């Protein structure tokens, strides 16, 4: 979202730059500081991840990834994302719809609460679930009696990820739908369209890029979440380890190739996310320009 807000002034200021030409040495200095930082803190770590992953050759890399524990971590990560992204998409749409289209008591409270997962430390978020569903927790006794395992099991990981990622879609949609207003939807209704048709034919086409953007961020976080998941997972290899957890466990066991090979997958995911994010931002910005006409 920040880059949307920033990219317009930048393009406008390109003309001003001619009037505000700084001396060459200053420009060179500022540019090299910026580029130096990017190399030191972004590119270099990425290269090290790849170098370490391939330090014992391509074969070792492939076999590290083919290991059952790594495979299970990849599967669990995919499963988590596959479940949480659709659920939070539905939740985000519902929340954004309720907040932008209805007037009700406690609306501002709901808007604030949506942001809660962003303001709470992920470790605390994980702990909440342990306190609720752990063996000493509020529902622990009842769960044990009915033989339902949530903490130190897959359901706990999914619950914690759901909690952590639920603001993404809603946060993205609320300002967009506020800007859009409800007149087009009302027009569709007055033309005889049902509520569902109005949503699919009028609302969705107008918010689709924002929605995809929110889903993408939600997905990236769901796959990369460490803190909250670490608290509820119990680190059982092959059972409750997600990819980020697997990176840590392998590293602690001095299995650097496995650790960095897993990390390289996450890094690859980050790069793909970044590219998609840029494309979506570009599309969204184009839509907003249309909107402001």
């Amino acid at each position: 979202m920040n880059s949307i807000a920033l990219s317009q002034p930048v393009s406008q200021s390109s003309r001003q730059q001619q009037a505000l030409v700084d001396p060459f040495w200053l420009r060179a200095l500022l540019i090299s500081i910026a580029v130096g930082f990017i190399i030191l803190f972004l590119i270099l770590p990425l290269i090290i991840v790849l170098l370490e992953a391939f330090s014992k050759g391509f074969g070792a890399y492939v076999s590290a990834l083919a290991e059952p524990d790594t495979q299970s971590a990849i599967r669990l990560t995919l499963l988590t994302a596959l479940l949480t992204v659709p659920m939070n998409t539905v939740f985000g749409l519902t929340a954004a719809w309720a907040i932008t289209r209805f007037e009700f008591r406690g609306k501002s409270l709901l808007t604030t609460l949506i942001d809660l997962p962003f303001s709470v430390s992920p470790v605390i978020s994980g702990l909440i679930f342990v306190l609720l569903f752990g063996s000493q927790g509020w529902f622990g006794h009842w769960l044990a009696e009915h033989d339902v395992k949530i903490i130190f099991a897959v359901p706990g990981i999914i619950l914690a990820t759901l909690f952590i990622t639920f603001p993404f879609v809603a946060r993205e949609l609320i300002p967009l739908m506020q800007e859009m207003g409800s007149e087009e939807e009302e027009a569709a209704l007055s033309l005889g369209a049902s509520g569902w048709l109005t949503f699919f034919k009028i609302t969705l086409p107008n918010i689709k890029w924002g929605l995809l953007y929110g889903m993408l961020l939600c997905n990236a976080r769901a796959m990369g979440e460490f803190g909250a998941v670490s608290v509820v997972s119990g680190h059982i290899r092959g059972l409750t380890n997600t990819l980020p957890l697997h990176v840590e466990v392998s590293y602690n066991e001095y299995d650097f190739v496995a650790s960095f090979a897993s990390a390289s997958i996450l890094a690859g995911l980050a790069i793909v996310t970044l590219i998609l994010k840029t494309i979506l931002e570009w599309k969204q910005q184009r839509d907003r320009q249309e909107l402001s006409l």
Partner: protein
Amino acid sequence: MSIILSDISKQFGTFTALNHIDLEIPEGELVALLGPSGCGKTTLLRIIAGLERPDSGRVLLNGEDKTEHHASHRGIGFVFQHYALFRHMTVFENVAFGLRVKDRKSRPSEAMIRKKVHTLLELVQLDWLHDRYPDQLSGGQRQRIALARALAVEPSVLLLDEPFGALDASVRKDLRQWLRHLHHDLNVTSIFVTHDQEEAMEVASQVVVLNHGRIEQQGGPSEIYDNPVNSFVSRFIGHTNIIDTEQVDQIWLSSSGLMPTDASQKVAHVRPHDIEVVKDAEIPSQAVLKDWQHLGSLIRIELVETGLQHFKNPIYAEMPNERFKQLQLDRGDQVAVKIRNARWFH
């Protein structure tokens, strides 16, 4: 289709938007809901369309109670103030929308849809824009497309919310006439909301004046203008001079011909064209001509006190251009005033 509203009330928090509205609109009329902003006119329109729910009261269309019917089942065409065109669809698809969302039984064939949309676009004289997107159109074009879209589903009632509000003056003038003619051709019962009394008088066959959520008066334009029922309507429609008899000298009143017929009449409303201005050395002057403005066929004259008299506000008189030239009036002249007609309110 006739529209009957009975006892409609609507509250927004502590603000009363509509206060027990009863209104009957006969079939085929072109009605203006006229009032200052915040008088509840748009809310009333949205309640008829089903976009807003009344707190109490019924909405009857053609004698049938539609209060509980969803907006999509009322058969009402609604034109929004800011057009609300679907920005991701072409002009053609915008107009076709209402036909495409019909259920399978009543949906016309693709060929029928094409034919109908093009007929409608020809009706609003914009068929040549059919493959454009809304953001490529001017305000007046968008407004006409919005109208074509609303007409596509053959509504029995057409509602327009400030239809010319966002347009510039010359386009507005053209569209007013055009709407009047269109209504004449289609003869669909139509209601439009406006805060511009000139627009209401020019376009509508019936005018409903609203204020503070209540109906002040309903009637034809000339009736509203010639026989306003109260001081609000008289002030809101057309120009009116308000003369408080308690603040003006009695001699002035009798010499200008403005005499109340009974004691309860305290405030006179006088239309500018009901004031005759005479320049005659024989008659003692009653006012000074401070300024005059050219309004085309009419001249507006601003009259102020001579020193003996005290008016709260200047008095405005209007006379035809020719007469003004005949009288050879000019700024600073001492003039006599004759009031031909006045309406009394207390």
